[in-house]
């Protein structure tokens, strides 16, 4: 702040001191519970609306334009020929869920922490590795590379990379700022780290990339607006991030371009979660772009084709309002794996793991291990 405004700052501070500080803990919790109840009611209303639409769909348009009576309620649960498209792809009926890895971050109270778990198709979760606990678990972000061979940590504005066992630790970026959602994010090929940096006193956000061999950080692109929690890339050649209400592509060394896509009204991109091999498709969380504080009740998910801009909406992964994507990945054959979290009113968190087919339909809901929190690391193949 300019020194000439010291007086204004002092006067504002003096005025602000006139407020009486009160304990708002109980009032906040009460309001939180009320918010939860209200959202539940909204969800119930939405469910009723969906059922009503379903009943509407039970009307059959007869040849000649006459509308038949609705079918009786007893038959509404019967399989409908119209409900199943004969062209619906069913490529993974026998094995819809790929093998996948989770990382369970350190917490002071959970015995099974810092573990990497693996679940083979149709199998159970088991621990396959443990990452050394960071010295300050509550202040250190640990991100395991998709190939589960390295970890990146962010603590006090410094990014370090090391082998999975903590050896060969290297500082790759310092003073990246203290804003939210700065990363680091691994590229899908596990060869680069993407970091969003801010600089006090300067406008804008800069996306930087660091190669595993220590090259960098080099600037991928700069934007004058905050970008959502991201960015993502398959190999670092093109990096994608969310700009308010739009999806941006950063080709290194050029100005960012907007990825043209047909976003449904009120379902603009809010966070880009994962990139497919070759970055041909992106997994995106959508919602109202006007809701910058993410207060809207439902987050939806979609896959956008980066070449054509075609948006494929994914089936609703869960009916929990206030859910947010944690992480996700694409399989080579076009399936999408999404891990989302829902904060409960009691302060706990519930995670949902969902596998979608290439057409956006849910093909699997593999069970999760008992855990407090976790990140999706990567998948087989």
């Amino acid at each position, binding site marked *: *702040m300019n020194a000439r405004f010291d007086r204004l700052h002092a006067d504002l501070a003096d005025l602000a001191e006139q407020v009486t500080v009160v304990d708002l803990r109980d009032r906040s919790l009460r309001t939180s519970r009320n918010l939860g109840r209200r959202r539940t009611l909204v969800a119930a209303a939405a469910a009723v609306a969906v059922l009503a639409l379903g009943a509407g769909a039970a009307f059959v348009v007869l040849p000649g334009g006459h509308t038949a009576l609705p079918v009786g309620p007893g038959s509404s649960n019967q399989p409908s020929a119209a409900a199943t498209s004969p062209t619906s792809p069913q490529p993974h009926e026998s094995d819809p869920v790929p093998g996948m890895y989770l990382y369970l971050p350190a917490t002071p109270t*959970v015995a099974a922490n810092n573990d990497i778990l693996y679940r083979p198709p149709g199998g159970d*979760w088991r621990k396959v590795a443990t990452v050394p606990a960071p010295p300050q678990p509550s202040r250190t972000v640990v991100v395991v590379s998709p190939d589960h061979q390295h970890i990146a940590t962010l603590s006090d504005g410094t990014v370090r990379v090391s082998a999975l066992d903590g050896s060969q630790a290297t500082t790759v970026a310092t003073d990246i700022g203290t804003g939210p959602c700065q990363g680091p994010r691994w590229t899908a090929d596990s060869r680069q780290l993407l970091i969003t940096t801010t600089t006090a006193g300067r406008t804008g956000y800069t996306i930087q990339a660091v190669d595993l061999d220590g090259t960098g950080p080099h600037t991928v692109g700069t934007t004058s607006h905050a970008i959502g929690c991201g960015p993502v890339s398959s190999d670092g050649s093109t990096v994608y991030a969310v700009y308010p209400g739009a999806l941006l592509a950063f080709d290194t060394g050029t100005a960012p371009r907007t990825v043209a896509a047909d976003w449904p009204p009120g379902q603009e991109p809010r966070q880009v979660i994962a990139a497919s091999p070759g970055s041909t498709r992106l997994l995106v969380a959508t919602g109202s772009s006007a809701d910058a504080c993410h207060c809207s009740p439902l987050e939806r998910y979609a896959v956008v084709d980066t070449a054509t801009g075609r948006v494929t909406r994914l089936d609703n992964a869960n009916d929990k309002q206030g859910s947010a994507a944690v992480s996700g990945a694409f399989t080579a054959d076009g399936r999408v794996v999404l891990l989302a979290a829902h904060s409960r009113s009691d302060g*706990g968190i519930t995670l949902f793991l969902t596998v979608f087919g290439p057409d956006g339909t849910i093909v699997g809901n593999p069970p999760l291990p008992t855990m407090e929190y976790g990140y999706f690391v990567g998948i087989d193949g």
Partner: protein
Amino acid sequence: MTDRPLVADGLPSAEPLRTVNPRLVTVDRLATEFDSFVRGRTPALLRAAYLLTGDQHLAEDLVQSALARVHRRWAYLHHEGNAEAYTRKTMYHLYVSWWRRRNVAESMPGDLPEPRGGYDHAEVTSTRITLRRALLRLTPKQRAVLVLRFFEDRSEAETAESLGITVGTVKSQTAKALARLRAVAPELAEHYSREGSAR
């Protein structure tokens, strides 16, 4: 993806997952941490909210609403280390949206609370009253920009992010807010510069 072996040196492989249910313990811990966060941050949030709303009760309502939304996402925010930034952003967004919906705080609420502490004098009191009245004659967005820029010492970029507006809008709103302050409170004009600062 790769199918390379995952086992780090010296670590057992394929160890069965322990079936510890951490949730009961975790809920207690998260609740304690949320309490600590609320009690630690409420004073600063209330001060900013008071400048925004000009009223003790509205300030309490605003902070309470923001904290409730933070509570709904506490487990996630706490883990991400974003709670502080998220709370402030939510508070400022709620403030602007309240104004859009209800046009609150556009009338002059009650008198200033009694000065606290053992030190006060006429000039300070006069400045307080004048500044408070002048703030309440700004638009909510101008007020929010002023509070973020000159009370919270946020940069233009940080202010833009907190309010969900562009840096250009921050600059223009800052200039308009300062001009308005000078217009509605000429006695303060000599104290405050004629130009907005860029940081």
